[in-house]
């Protein structure tokens, strides 16, 4: 729509490519450090030397790993994520539905948490230092301070085991109706929403309060504007940049950071897939997952930047 955004996009694209490359290299290095290779892992106890050799042969793992890495990289450039070692199906197909699961979960959580966070953040900035504000900030701190797995297991125990309102597992495959979706996702989504939105609301509040000390806010007050008006009309529009950034960070967490939730609720998402891949030393799969996380992060950050630019007339025009 205008030069700046375009240039930001281009610049970001460049950065993205570099970052993706760095990450893939780092991941590759890490995976190479892992003891044992896919053949040994698959054979497990039966990993007698000749058995391993045979299997490596059959899997074509004899050539140096670095070759395989670059072949994978080359493939990626042509949009081919390669094939998994352990069960030679294409990585794309393996990631496919896992990703859609993850996005389902992340999406619902985002839909709930962003408005919630905004509401909390804005209101507590509006009435800052009021009892309301103090209570909110205490609650948010409390939530931030409790490990996710405690919230998760506690939640399961109360709502699934005792009250039996919701299932203890979130079987993505079972969802047919929207109501069912709500029911199966209630717990994980609820927990993710809480954990993510407190982060965002804190940052929102901070960003707003930062701006509330600026001269034009005082000016607005001296025009007789009410606190809500000051916050909504004068502070908020100028805080969009930082807020968007906070949101982006939190959302990127929803994609890659939910391994604990996926574990506790046995939810087949990408994070868990990557952990499996690591456990079986399935290089192409590991790499591809890492790429997805890295990409989603960069993508969201870029969106945030653009939001910031659009919100700021100085940059916009």
């Amino acid at each position, binding site marked *: 729509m205008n030069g700046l955004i375009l240039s930001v996009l281009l610049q970001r694209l460049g950065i993205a490519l570099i970052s993706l490359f760095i990450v893939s290299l780092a991941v590759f290095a890490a995976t190479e450090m892992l003891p044992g290779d896919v053949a040994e892992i698959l054979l497990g106890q039966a990993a007698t030397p000749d058995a391993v050799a045979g299997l490596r042969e059959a899997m074509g793992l004899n050539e140096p790993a670095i070759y395989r890495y670059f072949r994978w990289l080359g493939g990626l450039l042509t949009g081919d994520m390669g094939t998994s070692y352990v069960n030679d199906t294409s990585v794309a197909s393996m990631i496919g539905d896992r990703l859609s699961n993850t996005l389902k979960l992340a999406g619902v959580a985002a839909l709930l948490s962003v408005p919630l966070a905004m509401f909390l953040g804005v209101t507590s900035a509006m009435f800052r230092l009021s009892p309301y504000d103090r209570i909110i900030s205490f609650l948010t701190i409390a939530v931030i301070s409790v490990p996710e797995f405690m919230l998760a297991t506690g939640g399961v125990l109360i709502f699934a085991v005792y009250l039996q309102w919701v299932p203890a597992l979130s079987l993505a495959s079972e969802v047919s109706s929207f109501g069912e979706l709500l029911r199966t996702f209630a717990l994980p989504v609820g927990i993710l929403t809480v954990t993510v939105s407190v982060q965002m609301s804190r940052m929102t509040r901070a960003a707003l309060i930062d701006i509330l000390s600026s*001269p034009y806010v005082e*000016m607005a007050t*001296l025009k*007789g*504007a009410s606190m809500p008006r000051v916050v909504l*009309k*004068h502070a908020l529009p*100028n805080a969009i940049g930082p807020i968007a950034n906070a949101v982006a960070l939190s959302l990127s967490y929803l994609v890659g950071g939910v391994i604990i939730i996926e574990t506790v609720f046995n939810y087949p998402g990408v994070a868990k897939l990557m952990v499996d891949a690591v456990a079986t030393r399935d290089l192409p799969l590991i790499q591809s997952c890492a790429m997805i996380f890295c990409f989603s992060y960069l993508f969201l950050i870029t969106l945030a930047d653009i939001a910031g630019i659009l919100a700021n007339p100085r940059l916009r025009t």
Partner: protein
Amino acid sequence: MKDDLAQIRDLQVTATTDAGRQIAIIKGVSFDIAKGEMVALIGESGSGKTTIALTLMGYTRTGCEITGGSVLLKGKEMASLTRAEAAKMRGAVAAYVPQSAASAFNPSQKIMDQVVEVSRIHGLMSDTQAQEKAVELFRALALPNPEIIGDRFPHQVSGGQLQRLSAAMALIADPALMIFDEPTTALDVTTQVEVLRAFKSVMQNSDIGGVYVSHDLAVVAQIADRIVVLKGGEVQEEGTAEQILTAPQHPYTKQLVAAFKPAEYATPIDEAITDTILDVQNTFAGYGLIGKDGMPAFVALKDISLTLKRGQNIGVIGESGCGKSTLARTIAGLLPRASGDIQFDGKPLQADLKDRSREHLRRLQIVFQFADTALNPNKPIGTILGRPLSFYHNMGGRQKEKRVEELLDMVHLPTSLKYRLPGELSGGQKQRINLARALAAEPDLILCDEITSALDTVVAAAILDLLKELQNELGLSYLFISHDLSTVQAICDDVVVMYNGEKVEQTKAADMMHATTHPYSKLLLSSVPKLDLGWLDSLEQDPELMRKFSDR
């Protein structure tokens, strides 16, 4: 006297420090404002002038509160209003024109929306009416193309225009009282003239009362009917502008007035001295990427040449953005020059300070405008002054201690200060420390970048005296950069006038008032407010020139 618009009686305001300690910042101030009358509150920073003005809107900045006395505005007690009640008055009855309009406008809203917001908040008139009215005001305030300027964003219009727009914003609701808070301090002199004119014209033919907060007596003299002189939260003297300027009673007022007539600078014309300490030849410098022609993207200095003899001072004047500070930075090597040649005491001076010998660095010192950002807030004065000593003269221990005390003594500060942090010093003291730090290097040349501009007139005058004194003792030379002519006049032999990166003219300081030939110099000089009531009205400037040179 005539029917009062506002009455302030025995006003007390206290501030609460982080420690929870209560300190009185306004100690029993009383004065009246009549309809259509413009009362000026004058005093140095910290005198509480803004605080008083704001109480007229029932507003105190965070941490402060009105603890006594009464503030009657149109018979309403502003001191004891609830938030909501006060909000009703603000903007509608009493309106505020901020010091820096540039920061007082919401960067993400169109100007028009912000101007008419007052009427929206108070539901005074329909938006269309409000907008029509706004346009009228724009016209009245002599703003260029008033019809469309409202559709712009704040960053798209100049500082002088914003200042006037903020006045329009204040006037939109026909307030009974206008509060001007140093509205021209941030502006260049040529612009200031315009803005003052605009304010005066809108205020004159209306019965709106006004409070004009300023530290600049000359400016106040042009616009105020009565003047209240403040110091440390107390009224020193009150009277008509006439009386305050011509027959000040209170010693402090006398000081203020005196500070405006600086002692003429007696040049120690000793023709014996011939060796030039600094010789700048056809120097170009700027910012941004270097192009093929070897020139940076934005050239801030164009072909500057000047020479400075040992023991003499040269002043560089011009308005913001004319490149005078860049000149200092280029000479200091902070901004490597793109081309040209600079000789220091006969030897070539490397463009980048990284390439300069420690000796050169020592002999050429720079002092900055803002004393408080120029001192590391976390280091005691002693350490700050000690560093150049150990760095250049590798002094240490007792010797260093002693030298530090000498330096403090040299700038007339108590030696006990060396244990204090900069934050605990006043602006003037800080600037003296700044100077002392430069002196610690025992330099030949000091580049003074606007070192008095941020100070109150009285304090500034004292600093100037100090500079002269030091020069006589140590045989220093100064390159003195300022936008304020009187200061330059007060201390320099020669004056260089700069405009938009170029040196337009160089004259002897003594006779610059009449000897200047370049139209811009003329305009600039004529725009400097004089300490007499009629100056603004009698001032005639060629509108052509104005349009050409001033920022409007």
